[in-house]
């Protein structure tokens, strides 16, 4: 059983990663808008508006936020492969394979996590080349990786669930802006959640996007704990970052469990 699980995970992980690079839609398309944000919109906004935080310049503030736009877009665009695999591809072959079926959605999630980390690295390198000022350390990189990885798992679990539940590519594509982009505006991407109307602040504080963005900013720009403080209001920065990662981990468990359950229900009659 352990051997079958390991073999299944490793084979399906490689297959899904190869598929993402082969089709390119899961790699190039999600990267486009965040890159434009990081390289064009962020510097323009910084110049036009100045800044509002003493800890971080506005260009860097928005460039970091572009990663939290990128990760859900990658998840959602790659969720489309779940539909094409089921309708026109390989899902039935995978169901007949002597591997535990839970490995199918979980291997998908891990491969998209890898892709998201690679894309985030490309984004941050490009933003740094454009002038974003990142000031990080070994611990900071760990916070950053944790934030990106967990947000990827949360949003991919959600994407797989939606893809399986919707089952039609056109309807699924129509959902992408609502799921991948709209929450980003309330997550402290362009401005602090403090300036949102009170009810929206409450919504923002439970969004995984908000927690991920606060942790990633904290990891990439030392001393930039404003996002975490807006959510938790505590004195200890590591404690607040840890709590936000915990929230993300809980969301990840919930959405991935949901994805596995929906996969089981939809793939077997």
């Amino acid at each position, binding site marked *: 059983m352990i051997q079958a699980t390991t073999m*299944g995970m490793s084979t399906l992980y490689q297959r899904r990663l190869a598929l993402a690079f082969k089709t390119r839609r899961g790699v190039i398309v999600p990267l486009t808008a965040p890159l434009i944000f990081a390289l064009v919109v962020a510097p323009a906004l910084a110049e036009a508006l100045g800044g509002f935080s003493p800890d971080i310049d506005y260009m860097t503030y928005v460039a970091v936020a572009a990663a939290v736009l990128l990760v859900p877009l990658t998840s959602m665009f790659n969720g489309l492969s779940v539909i094409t695999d089921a309708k*026109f591809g390989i899902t039935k*072959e995978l169901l007949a*394979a*002597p*591997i535990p079926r839970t490995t199918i959605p979980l291997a998908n999630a891990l491969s998209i996590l890898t892709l998201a980390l690679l894309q985030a690295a490309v984004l941050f390198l490009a933003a740094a080349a454009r002038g974003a000022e990142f000031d990080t350390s070994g611990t900071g990189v760990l916070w950053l990786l944790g934030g990106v990885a967990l947000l990827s798992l949360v949003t991919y679990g959600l994407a797989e669930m939606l893809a399986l539940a919707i089952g039609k590519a056109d309807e699924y594509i129509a959902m992408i802006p609502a799921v991948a982009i709209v929450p980003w505006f309330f997550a402290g991407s362009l401005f602090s959640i403090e300036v949102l109307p009170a009810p929206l602040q409450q919504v923002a504080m439970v969004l995984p996007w908000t927690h991920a963005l606060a942790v990633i900013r904290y990891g990439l720009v030392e001393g930039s704990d404003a996002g975490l403080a807006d959510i938790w209001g505590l004195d200890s920065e590591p404690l607040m970052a840890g709590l936000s990662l915990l929230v993300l981990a809980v969301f990840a468990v919930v959405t991935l469990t949901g994805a596995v359950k929906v996969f089981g229900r939809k793939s077997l*009659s």
Partner: protein
Amino acid sequence: MTAVRFKSPRTAANRGERAAEQPEGREGTPVAAGEPVVSVRELRKTYAGGVEALKGISFDVHEGELFGLLGPNGAGKSTTIGILTTTVRPSGGEACLGGEDVRANSLRARRRMGVVYQESVLDNEFSGRANLRLHARLWGMTRAEGERRIAEVADAIGLEGILDRGVRTYSGGQRRRLEIARALLSEPDVLFLDEPTVGLDPASRHGLWDLIQETRRRYAVSIVLTTHYLDEAERLCDRVAIVHEGRIVALDAPERLIASLGEEVLELRVRADAEEAVGAVAALPLAVGEPFVIGNTVTVPLKRGGGNGAQVMEAVRDAGIAVEGISVRRTTLDDVFLRVTGRRIENGKAA
């Protein structure tokens, strides 16, 4: 061709002999000696919404046998394959592959089978070779073992020249060949072919028949094939189970099913009440089985060398029944299907 594994080579020529050798089991079901590779007992499936797809079917498939499930769309054939390949949950009954219960030991059962689905199930973004490699790894083969098996099977199935092309460029027949090659990679005990020739042009269809026979001869693998093509079942299968509305209504070698109706049948199209004509022809000495009526056609199983149309015409005319047409021809599985279900299969549907 590269040397491949032979278990017990057999040819189509001895199919009839083997079928005849099989002793009669309960309710006329032939049961061969030895453990069956596939064993199905009182299998039931009711889908959500109350649709009863299977109403308790039972059959065995023996080592090296090519077993057919014949019936129109919706008869329950694909549901049976779905349960045996563990993609459909049964509502009741038992199904075993090589002695492994498909519910309790589904992983072990899946290791023993290969499956070719009705619709094409390929990784369309990749080459044929990449599809085979994926299968080899999922079935637990080492890289070297996988490459060796891919070379052997590609040679045997005739895929060598196209294996490195993207599968999107394959014709329907080539896709089917690739899927059969893939299913054979892990040397399964049983190969499931779910309506393998649906959607193929006549040339590809005949080519695939040859491939199925060659595969079975070469690998001595047990094959369970579903089809709604009567000629396909008659040509390929050692034994056929006719599935009708979730039940097996007949099960035997095609030759024996056909022989049960006589070597020839007489078809009589009448203008008036066909039931009256039945009474007239049933009394004639040339009939071997009970005549049966579908619509305004009376079908009469004839004795060997029967086919005395004039005698039948006279009897019917004496009974005062107007006849539109009369014909005598060789008995086919179509007649058997008609006899046991009261329907014909037309374009995959019961008519």
